[in-house]
């Protein structure tokens, strides 16, 4: 591939230890103020449309009674931040339990899902016996879904209704994540694996000692996909869980915020913080874990882990 002047400049800058910012390539016309303004408005508008709702719920959950009433229900900046709403929510063990259920299904589910996906993806990424037919079994799942009612009957048949396992087991494998993982494994040089085999390593050892250490990025990304999926799942809980003590956070959020159900029954709230703050506090509780893990994992997105798989 021919290198352009602008690429050569970038290489030179990097060699000087400067951060990689190629700047405007010489052949490109200088930015026009008009286009810059248009781009600025679009980018600013989109950013605000994402930031404002999040700011709104966080601020409202922290706002005190007086400010909230004066502002008519919503604030974008709490003048006297108070944790009264959170106090109230955590005063009974209702929310603790919901958080516990969500944390449990996320942790156990992600671990199980990673285990299943890694082993299956690795085994089918090498030309081994049964590799092809098993691969076809997985690929078929991309084409067809068994449907909601047969799934329900299956979960019922297995005796999982009203247990946390009904929220975990059906989600422990996703063909898309499998494909991402497998195409990453296929790009690991065969020579490495051969060398380990000659040194007497078993397949398990090769997977653990050679393949996995090389695949941290893809494991992180796929793990994130699974974890987010488990944390966000609400419909499974609605379908399989009747017992209120097993409600995950998303179902609590749906019942009390989206459906506007009365929290008084659940928590025994009598007065104190206005319901608006309570609702917003639940939203924040559901949102926070995602906001916390997101920065650690989003740096992997641009490394081509996902797009690499998509491009085959």
């Amino acid at each position, binding site marked *: 591939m021919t290198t352009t002047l602008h690429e050569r400049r970038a290489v030179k800058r990097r060699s000087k230890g400067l951060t990689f910012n190629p700047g405007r390539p010489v052949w490109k016309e200088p930015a026009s103020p008009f286009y810059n303004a248009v781009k600025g408005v679009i980018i600013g508008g989109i*950013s605000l449309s994402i930031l404002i709702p999040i700011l709104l719920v966080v601020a409202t959950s922290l706002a005190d009674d007086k400010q909230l009433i004066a502002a008519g229900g919503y604030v974008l900046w709490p003048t006297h931040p108070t944790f009264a709403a959170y106090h109230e929510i955590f005063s009974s063990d209702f929310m603790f339990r919901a958080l516990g259920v969500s944390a449990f299904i996320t942790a156990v589910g992600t671990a199980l899902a990673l285990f299943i996906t890694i082993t299956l993806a690795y*085994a089918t990424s090498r*030309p081994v*016996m049964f590799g092809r037919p098993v691969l076809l079994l997985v690929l078929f799942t991309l084409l067809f879904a068994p449907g909601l*009612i*047969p799934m329900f009957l299956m979960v019922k048949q297995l005796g999982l209704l009203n247990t946390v396992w009904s929220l975990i*087991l059906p989600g422990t494998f996703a063909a898309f994540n499998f494909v991402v993982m497998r195409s990453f494994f296929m790009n690991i040089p065969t020579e490495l694996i051969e060398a380990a085999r000659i040194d007497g390593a078993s397949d398990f050892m090769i997977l653990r000692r050679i393949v996995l250490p090389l695949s941290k990025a893809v494991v992180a990304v796929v793990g994130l996909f699974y974890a987010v999926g488990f944390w966000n799942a609400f419909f499974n809980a609605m379908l399989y869980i009747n017992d209120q003590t097993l409600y995950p956070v998303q179902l609590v959020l749906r019942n009390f915020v989206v459906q506007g159900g009365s929290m008084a029954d659940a928590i025994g709230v009598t007065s104190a913080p206005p319901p608006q703050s309570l609702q917003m506090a639940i939203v924040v509780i559901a949102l926070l874990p995602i906001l916390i893990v997101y920065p650690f994992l*989003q740096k992997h997105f641009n490394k081509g882990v996902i797009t690499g798989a998509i*491009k085959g």
Partner: protein
Amino acid sequence: MSQMQQESARKQAVADDRPGAGPEVHGPRRAKSSKTAPTHDGIPVRTISWKTRLRRDRQMILMMVPGVLFLALFFYLPILGNVIAFQDYQPFLGITGSDWVGLQNFVDLYFNPDFWVALRNTIVLAVWQLVLFFPVPLGLALIVDSLISTKIRRWFQSLVYLPHFLSWVLVIALFQQVLGGAGLVNNTLRDMGLDTIPFMTNPDTFPLLATIQLVWKDAGWAMIIFLASLAAIDGSLYEAAAADGAGRWRRMWHITLPGLRSIIVLLLILRIGDILSVGFEQFLLQHDAVGAGAAEVLDTFTYFAGVVGGGWSIGAAAGLAKGVVGALLIYAANKVAHKMGEPGIFQKKVG
């Protein structure tokens, strides 16, 4: 038996060494050596007996067990459960005890006006998504790609990917807080003495609202695939075009868009193939607020008819019909993509 195994092993070895053999791999790929029969130009030179292979691959086969078990329990067995679509299924009688009714459930479905409403809504929403959602990630990717400052670029990317990771419950809750009857916008309108606008509850504008929600949640994330394609375009093409006097719009028209053509065509075909799936949780959550007339899609129909209404067989019939037609459409779309010289199904979803 052993002959057959050997034969299939040989075929597999051939398939594995041919570049771009499987449907999932495109472009040349490293030849796998020594673990299967070594091949020369696709012709096996030596075969190993299946017993040897079984002994050699036993750990790898063991690794497939959890995944295969999962697929059996939560995919292939439930598929068999679809037989209740041909029964008058009664939970207390079970699949073995319920009466067979042939295609009666599908006939009932055909005469059920609610089913047609659900089908109509699904297609209407799919068209809205195609027109309003589909171009957004492309436009966003073009803007992001044109940003010279890597700092702004990275910051913006991180921000627009975020909503993809929020649950639908959370997204609907956020929309309610901003646009709902007691939300930020309507509160402000009320303070100013104006009439409030029922953004969240008007069935007539629901397709627009649903599409906007989808854009808010997923357009940023869907951009990722276009960005990857943009990065793959040879930069020297732009330089050469600029040297020949092409301005920014000409360069976009003659270099950028042709460079993205294949991915655009592919995503479009696959979206059309997947037209019966417009989303589920989003509509289930807003089913009460806007009513079944606007928010009932095929998937919610299955849920309400089957699980809520107790019409297990009718629900299963609707689900099965959707699944079969959907699978045929995806298969056909994939075939069309292949015919156009594009790689297949795995570009369907971006996460």
